[in-house]
C-alpha cells in the first residue's frame, strides 16, 4: 500500500577522525515515489554524496551509520539485509551513475566485459545473449558503433562516451531506481546537455525513479520535479522545483550586479590600448620517433588577437579545454610563447629582457581559480601578501610590510587579525580575497582573473565579483576575465571574446554578442546558458 519506492528515514552518517567524531549527514528524511525524479543539491561537503551512497550501502569503510537510520526500498529496510541479499538488489533494482567517468571504469577490462558482467550476475544468459544485449545497451545510450566500442578499453573513449558506458551499466537490468551522483559535473557544457537529455529520455522510457545529485541548481531544474537542498549534512529546504527556483536563493543572480559606471578619461582610452595581443600562438610540441623529432604541435592558443583599454573588462568565454587558461598564463609570460606579440603599453612582453620583464610584473597580475592551490599552505597570510612587495622591492622594513599588509587586508574586506594565520584556516571566499590582496600589493594596472568565482559557493561568488568591481573603480584596473559562465560575463564585461579550441571565434561588445551571436558555437553557448 506504500506509494513510495524509496523512503529514507533519520539517515545519520558519521566519521571517526583524529579530531573526534564528525557528522557528514545529520538526520535526513526524504522519499521518492515511482517515476519521480528528486534532486539533492548542495555544495561540496554538504553530505549529498554520502546520502546517495548510503542507499545502496556503498559508503567508505570508515563511515558509520546510526542505528536509527532506515532505508526502506519497496517496503523492506535495506539496512537489515545480509550482504548477499543486498548484492541481488545492487545493479538489479538500484543502478548507479558516478561523477568521474575517467575513473569509474576498470582501466584493464574492455567495455563489453564490464557491461556484460552486470548482466551475467543478475540474469542467466548465454554468452551470445549477453553480447547481443550489451550491443543493444550501447545503442540505447547513444554510442555510434556498438560492436567496435565493445572491445575497446575505457582510456580509448572520450569523457562523454565513458559516462554513457557507465549509464549503460546502470540501466542494464532496468532498475527501478537510478542514483546519479553529479553525473555531468566532470563534463564540458555541451556534453553535459547531451548526457542530461539521455538520462531524461531513459527515465521516461523505462519509467524509472531517479535520485539526482548535483551542486548546480541550473542542472537540477532541467531534470527534476522535486528538490532537496542540503547544507552541512542537514536538509535546509525542500519543495517542487518551481518553488525552489522562485526563491532565487540558491543560484547567483549576476544580473543584480550594478554595472560599473564608465570611467571618465575617455580621450585616453581612445588613444591607446593598455594590452594589445597580436597573433598570439602558444604551441606545445609533440615529439616522436627515435630522436624525439617534433612532428606536430598541440595548438593550445592559436592566432589570438585581443585589445583591452584601461579601466575596461574583457571576458574570455569558452568551455574547459578551449585554451582560456593557457591564454591567461601566456599574458603573464608564465609559458613559453611560440609566436606573436603581447604589447603592454609599448613593451612587447615575449621579447623583453629579464630585467624589464621583472619590472613589468608589477603591472600585470593574476587571480587564480582554485583558492586552495593558489596559496602556499606553509606560509602565513602576511608573508603571502607581502611576497610581491619584497620581490619588487616596494618595501624595505618589516614595519612598512605590516602597514602595507594591513592596508591591503582592509581593501579586500578582511580583518587585520588574519595576518598571522595559515591559509587552511579560511573559507574559499576568504582565501580568494587573500589571493586578490596578493595581486593588489604591487599596484598592478591589469589583472588577469582566471575563473575567480567558479570554485566558490553561491554567496561568496557575488561578494568576490562585487569586490572586484569596487577595486576596478577605485584603482582604474583593467581585467581580462576568464570564465565559462555567460551570465557572469554579461554582467561585468565591456567586451566578450568567445574561445573554441584555441581560437577566438567571435568577439565584440557584450550586448552585441549576447543579442546577436553570429558564430554557431557562440549561438550554442548562449542558448545553453541563458
Amino acid at each position, binding site marked *: 500500500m506504500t506509494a513510495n519506492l524509496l523512503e529514507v528515514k533519520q539517515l545519520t552518517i558519521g566519521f571517526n577522525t583524529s579530531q573526534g567524531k564528525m557528522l557528514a549527514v545529520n538526520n535526513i528524511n526524504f522519499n521518492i515515489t515511482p517515476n519521480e525524479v528528486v534532486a539533492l543539491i548542495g555544495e561540496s561537503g554538504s553530505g549529498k554524496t554520502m546520502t546517495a551512497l548510503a542507499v545502496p550501502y556503498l559508503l567508505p569503510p570508515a563511515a558509520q551509520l546510526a542505528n536509527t537510520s532506515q532505508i526502506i526500498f519497496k517496503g523492506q529496510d535495506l539496512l537489515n539485509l545480509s550482504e548477499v541479499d543486498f548484492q541481488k538488489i545492487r545493479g538489479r533494482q538500484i543502478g548507479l551513475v558516478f561523477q568521474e567517468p575517467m575513473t569509474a571504469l576498470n582501466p584493464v577490462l574492455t567495455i563489453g566485459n564490464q557491461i556484460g558482467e552486470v548482466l551475467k550476475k543478475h540474469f542467466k544468459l548465454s554468452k551470445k545473449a549477453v553480447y547481443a544485449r550489451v550491443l543493444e545497451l550501447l545503442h540505447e545510450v547513444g554510442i555510434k558503433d556498438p560492436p567496435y566500442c565493445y572491445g575497446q578499453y575505457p582510456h580509448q573513449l572520450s569523457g562523454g562516451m565513458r559516462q554513457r558506458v557507465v549509464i549503460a551499466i546502470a540501466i542494464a537490468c532496468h532498475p527501478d531506481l537510478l542514483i546519479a551522483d553529479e553525473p555531468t559535473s566532470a563534463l564540458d557544457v555541451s556534453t553535459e546537455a547531451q548526457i542530461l537529455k539521455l538520462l531524461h529520455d531513459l527515465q521516461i522510457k523505462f519509467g524509472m525513479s531517479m535520485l539526482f545529485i548535483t551542486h548546480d541548481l541550473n542542472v537540477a531544474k532541467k531534470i527534476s520535479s522535486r528538490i532537496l537542498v542540503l547544507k552541512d549534512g542537514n536538509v535546509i529546504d525542500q519543495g517542487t522545483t518551481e518553488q525552489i527556483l522562485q526563491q532565487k536563493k540558491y543560484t547567483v543572480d549576476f544580473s543584480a550586479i550594478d554595472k560599473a559606471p564608465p570611467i571618465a578619461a575617455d580621450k585616453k582610452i581612445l588613444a591607446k590600448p593598455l594590452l594589445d595581443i597580436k597573433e598570439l600562438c602558444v604551441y606545445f610540441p609533440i615529439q616522436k620517433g627515435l630522436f624525439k623529432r617534433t612532428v606536430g604541435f598541440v595548438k593550445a592558443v592559436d592566432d589570438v588577437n585581443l585589445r583591452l583599454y584601461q579601466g575596461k573588462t574583457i571576458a574570455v568565454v569558452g568551455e574547459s579545454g578551449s585554451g582560456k587558461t593557457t591564454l591567461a598564463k601566456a599574458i603573464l609570460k608564465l609559458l613559453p610563447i611560440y609566436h606573436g606579440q603581447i604589447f603592454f603599453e609599448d613593451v612587447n612582453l615575449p621579447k623583453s629582457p629579464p630585467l624589464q620583464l*621583472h619590472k613589468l610584473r608589477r603591472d600585470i597580475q593574476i587571480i587564480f581559480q582554485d583558492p586552495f592551490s593558489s596559496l602556499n599552505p606553509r606560509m602565513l597570510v602576511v608573508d603571502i601578501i607581502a611576497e610581491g612587495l619584497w*620581490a*619588487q622591492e616596494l618595501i624595505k622594513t618589516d614595519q612598512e610590510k605590516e602597514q602595507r599588509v594591513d592596508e591591503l587586508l582592509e581593501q579586500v574586506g578582511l580583518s587585520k587579525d588574519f595576518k598571522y594565520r595559515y591559509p587552511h584556516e579560511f573559507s574559499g571566499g576568504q582565501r580568494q580575497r587573500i589571493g586578490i590582496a596578493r595581486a593588489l600589493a604591487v599596484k598592478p594596472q591589469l589583472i588577469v582573473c582566471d575563473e575567480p568565482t567558479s570554485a566558490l559557493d553561491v554567496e561568496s561568488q557575488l561578494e568576490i565579483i562585487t569586490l572586484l568591481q569596487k577595486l576596478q573603480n577605485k584603482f582604474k584596473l583593467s581585467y581580462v576575465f576568464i570564465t565559462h559562465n555567460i551570465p557572469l560575463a554579461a554582467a561585468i564585461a565591456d567586451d566578450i571574446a568567445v574561445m573554441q579550441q584555441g581560437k577566438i571565434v567571435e568577439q565584440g561588445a557584450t550586448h552585441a554578442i549576447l543579442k546577436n551571436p553570429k558564430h554557431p558555437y557562440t549561438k550554442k553557448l548562449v542558448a545553453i546558458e541563458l
Partner: protein
Amino acid sequence: MTFHPVILWTDALIYLLIIASIFCVRWAKRQEQLRSAWRQILQSRLAIISLVILVTYAAIGFLDSIHFRATDQNQITSVESVFDYLVSPLGKNDEKTYSAPFATHLYNKDIIILPNGLHLRDFPHLKFVDEEQMNPVDNRTLDIIRHCTLSTLGGIVIWFIICALSIMLAAQRQQQKFLTKLNKIVKEKEGIVWRTVLITVGVIIVLGFNLFDLSHAYHILGTDKVGQDVFYETLKSIRTGLIIGTLTTLITVPFAITFGMLSGYFRGWVDDVIQYVYTTVNSIPDVLLIAAAVLALQIFISNHPEFFSNLVQRADARLLALCIILGLTSWTNLCRLLRGETLKLREQDYVQAAIALGTSRKQILIKHIMPNLMHLVVIALVMDFSGLVLAEAVLTYVGVGVDPTTLSWGNMINAARFELAREPVVWWPLLAAFLFMFPLVICANLFADAVRDALDPRIRKL
C-alpha cells in the same frame, strides 16, 4: 685524574645532527600540517611506546658518543665514553674466553694451577663472578632472585618519584590540582599520551635497574671468545647501529633535496644531467657498488696509517666512510621522489603566482618548493632507518661493513656463525644481538608506519 675530551668524527656529526634536529623541530612546530600529523601520531599507542623505546636507545647511543681520555698520574688510558664510565666496571671485567650467561665457571676446561702447585684440568672459576662473596646459604638462583627483587623495588620507587614530579609539573603549568591531573591521566581523559608514556618509562626503568644490578654481579649474557662481556658488547653496538641509521640519512638528504629540486624545477639540461647521474648510480646493484666503494676506501685507509693516530680513530674513520658510501649510493630513490614532487609543485598556482610577482628562483625554491617537500623527506628518513640498521649486519658479514674491532651487531652475528657450529654450542652472542637489535628495528618500523600514515597525503583516512 684529569679528563680530556676527545671528539671523534662521528661524534661531531652526531652533535651536528642533534643541533639540526632541534632546529627542524622548532621549524616544524610552526607548521600546522606537521603539528596535526604529530597529533595523529600521538593517537597510536604503539607509536608512542615505540617512540619512548627509541628515545631510550638514542640516549644510550648519545652517552656513548661523548668520548674522553682519562689521564691518571701521567698514565694515559684509552679513549672512553661517558657511557663506559657510567656502567663500569662492565666492559673491563674480561674473562679468559667463553662463559655462559650467569655462569660461575668458564665454558671450556682449562688447566688450573691449584695452590698446592698441582695442575688440574677443569672449568676454572670466573674472575669477575666471585662465588666466595655470595652468602654461603645462597645458591645462584636465590642470589639472582634477591638481586631482582631489590632492583625491581628500587626501580618502582624511582618510577613513582618521576611520575609524581612530572605530574606535579604538568599540574602546575596548567594550573590544576595534582589529584585532578592524576585522575585525568589515569583515566586517559586528555588522550592516551601521558599514561602510555609513563607506563612505558616505568617498564624501561624497572628493566634497566634489573639489568644494571645483575650485570654488576654476573655476565648476564655470558662472555665471548676473548672473554669480553657480551651484554656490554651489545650495548655498545647500539651506537654503531644508530650512527649508521642516522648519519647515512644526514648525508643522503642534502644531496637528494638539492638535486631533486634542481632537476624538477629547472628541467631541461639540468634535469638530463641529474637524471643521468642517478640512473647510472642506480643501475649498479646496491651491494656491489657499496662493496666496490668500501674496498677501495679500505685499501686507502690501510695504506695511509699516518692519517690516524690510533685504532679508535681508524675504526671511526671506517664507520664514517661506510655511512658516506651508504649515503652516496642511496640518495637516488629519494631524489627521484623529490624530483617528481617538484615537477608537480612548480605547476601549482601559488608557484605561478610567485613567478608572476617576480619572486627570484632561489626564493621560490626555498619558500615554496622546499617546505612542501619536507613531509616526503621525513617519511623517507624514518622509513630508511630500520633498513640501514639491518644493512649494517649484512654488509659486515660480506666483509664491507664496519671495522672488525668496532663493536657491532653485524660483527656479533658474523662470529655467531662459527659459534653455532662448534661443540658445545655457544648461543648467547647471537641471542644478545637479537635481543637488542630486534626491539630497535621493530620500534623504528612501527614508528615509521605511524609517521607515514600521518604525513602521506596519498593514504586517505576516510
